């Protein structure tokens, strides 16, 4: 997976035309719209410590999708919810008004609520809640640009921010999505591919413990497609986890020097 | 009058006599998880009620030291009315009806026997064809009885109106929106006490006497029906437990 450092503000003029026949999305030789091969992920740029006010934070860029996550806490649960003797994770995902092609994406609030729930479900299994009893860790994710595969990028970036905040975790959570255009599986799909997809699969997993924490699938899948898709996503998640680990190590070591 | 509510032969739009109540149907214990539950149907208006409690008060500030705290929530299903657009749950009309139901139920429940506790009454309208408020009160009384909560008397309620200068009993949606007055009464039949009396639109005083009288008779009739249902239910329970050899 190309882990090249794309300069974070390179504004390629990739116009994404919305209504496009699926044939234009992948050429006969199997090259996708943006030049990648079907099983190749988008160039990723990861960086921790993006927000110094937060206990921990991370910024992630996967192709056109740009996300920033900041983690606060563990701190006292604000409105005194019911007493709970283990820690609480409070996740909130919001879209910037300029995130989508149309300003203030319509139906944003239901999508935001849904993404917040899914972010919580994806991270819940990876965070050792018993190490900060009765307090809450707040995870605020902001999607700066929605270029497709927003949820998996938010998940990976959030787990990076949690690690950067020093929260005790069982493992990093890396996530990837995959779109199916009749039989060919396009890994780490862009917005254009996602709109014309026949089916999609989003997987979040704890790579080194080899455990799936979140799985969402839509569209009609035969068994063969399904198992191949799962395998592709698992490999991609392991590679992504490797990249996340090196990002974490670099950021801490250059603080030392 | 554009719409003839009463045909020359004295029949209403749905074929009822002016002083006739719609078809009543009720059954108890429809929700296993609830302490007491009941559905109540008046013609096409169908309502389900569930009672939880008496249980510990959720927030200490509302706790009453000498009596039970009765809380009620009324909500309508999205599909209950013709047009699908239902407002959010906490809209004004639902809050007002919840308050009305709570007041009439609180008058019947012997709250002083259950101090420092809380009784939740939840009512959901499955189908609305006029008189939803009355159906909810009837369903709530049955649910409370099913939950074994001590009550001075069951609360029976029904609505009556006045169209084509004849008093009508138990209005359906068409008659309700026919522009005439709508008098909703909730009654403790044995104690002969009114726990709820609401009327909108104008009505001359002597006419009001007649409509009110008709409504009263309607409530008494519904109360008798509810008492039979409760009797029947208790017989089934006794039979199921083998106490009574029927």
């Amino acid at each position, binding site marked *: 997976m190309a882990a090249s450092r794309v300069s974070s503000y390179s504004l390629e003029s990739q116009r994404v035309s919305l209504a496009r026949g699926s044939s234009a999305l992948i050429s006969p030789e199997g090259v996708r719209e943006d030049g990648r091969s079907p099983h190749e992920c988008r160039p990723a740029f990861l960086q921790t410590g993006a927000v110094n006010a937060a206990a921990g934070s991370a910024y992630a860029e996967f192709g056109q999708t740009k996300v920033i996550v900041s983690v606060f806490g563990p701190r006292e649960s604000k409105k005194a919810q019911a007493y709970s003797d283990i820690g609480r994770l409070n996740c909130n995902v919001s879209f910037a008004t300029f995130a989508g092609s149309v300003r203030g994406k319509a139906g944003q609030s239901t999508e935001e609520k849904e993404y917040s729930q899914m972010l919580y479900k994806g991270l819940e299994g990876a965070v050792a809640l018993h190490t900060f009893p009765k307090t809450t860790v707040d995870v605020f994710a902001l999607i700066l640009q929605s270029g497709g595969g927003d949820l998996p990028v938010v998940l990976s970036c959030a787990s990076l921010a949690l690690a950067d905040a020093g929260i005790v975790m069982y493992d990093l959570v890396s996530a990837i999505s995959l779109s199916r255009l009749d039989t060919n599986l396009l890994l780490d799909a862009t917005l254009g591919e996602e*709109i014309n997809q026949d*089916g999609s699969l989003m997987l979040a997993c704890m790579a080194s413990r080899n455990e799936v924490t979140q799985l969402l699938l839509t*569209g009609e899948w035969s068994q063969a497609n399904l198992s191949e898709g799962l395998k592709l996503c698992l490999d991609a998640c392991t590679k992504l986890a490797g990249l996340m680990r090196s990002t974490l190590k670099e950021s801490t070591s250059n603080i030392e020097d | 009058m554009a719409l003839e509510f009463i045909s020359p032969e004295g029949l209403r739009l749905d074929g009822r006599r002016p002083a006739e109540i719609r078809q009543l149907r009720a059954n108890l214990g429809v929700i296993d998880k609830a302490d007491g539950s009941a559905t109540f149907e008046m013609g096409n208006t169908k309502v389900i009620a569930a009672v939880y409690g008496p249980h510990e008060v959720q927030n200490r500030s509302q706790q009453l030291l000498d009596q039970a705290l009765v809380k009620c929530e009324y909500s309508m299903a999205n599909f209950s009315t013709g047009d699908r657009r239902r407002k959010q749950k906490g809209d004004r009309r639902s809050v007002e009806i919840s308050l009305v139901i709570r007041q009439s139920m609180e008058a019947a429940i012997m709250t002083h026997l259950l101090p420092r506790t809380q009784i939740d009454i939840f009512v959901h309208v499955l189908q609305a064809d006029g008189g939803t408020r009355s159906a909810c009160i009837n369903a709530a009384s049955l649910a409370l009885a099913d939950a074994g909560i001590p009550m001075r008397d069951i609360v029976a309620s029904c609505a009556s109106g006045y169209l084509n200068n004849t008093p009508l009993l138990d209005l359906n949606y068409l008659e309700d929106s026919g522009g005439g007055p709508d008098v909703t009464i909730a009654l403790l039949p044995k104690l002969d006490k009114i726990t709820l009396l609401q009327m909108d639109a104008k009505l001359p005083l002597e006419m009001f006497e007649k409509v009110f009288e008709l409504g009263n008779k309607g409530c008494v009739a519904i109360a008798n029906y509810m008492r039979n249902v409760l009797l029947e239910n208790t017989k089934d329970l006794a039979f199921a437990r083998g106490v009574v050899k029927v």
Partner: protein
Amino acid sequence: MVVGLSAAERRYLTDGIAQGLRNDGRGLYDFRAFSVELAIIPQANGSARVRLGATDVITSVKAELGRPQASRPSQGRVEINIECSSTAAPQFEGRGGEDLSLELSRALYRSLLCNNGTGPAIDLSALTVIEGKLCWNLFIDGLVLSSDGNLLDVLAIAVKAALSNTGIPKVEVTSAAAAEQEADFEISDNPDDFSGFDVSHVPVIITLTKVGRTYIVDATEEEESQMSSAISIAVNSAGHVCGITKRGGAGLDPSVLLDMISVAKEVSKSLLSTVDAEIMAAESRGDDQM
């Protein structure tokens, strides 16, 4: 409803499941008996009430004429909205039930209609009247009256039953107007020429709940309170997987995941047949009632 299980009850439940025994005597992969009633909401185009054990839900399908989406001129739109009534549990009072309602609505939307409505479950192109200008919009509303676990599976059955009971009135276009103005049309309201819905492709959802190291089908609320993780898998009559939603926190080993999917496929065969049988029975009961 938060089930107050004592430690002993919890041990009894989890150890029982580990040995393949469940509190109510069912096997690990057995469904509870369920009953289906059709056409219980007269104002709706189609409605159903399904009771599975103590879980009780009502769904209604309403069709309204409207403009199709710009990006999908040749298809009607479908919206699914589930509501948890406070009668099911005191926690659902006020805004309490909203999170669960959103989760159920999205899971159903994802499994039944797949992404942005292109799924094969419901043939949306049959909903168009005039391409690009006029189409039927389906509003599927669900209401949970009483909940004893496994809500998603019951709701899926209820939606399938409601759709099978749905009748869409025939629309004669009296004057095919030019592109922009409104075409005028006339909706026939005699029930005979209502076009029904082919629901054979609509999938059923099987939720596998992992308690300890074993997973079970159709968990009651008590069993759900002990779950470490749960997966809802939608399978249609062709045996294809139409949607997967993972709930619950703990991670799942991918191999276990694949086993769960195959078990779901196995169970779905028998469930699909029982659901169709129940719907058939309900329809015949419905006819003699009419």
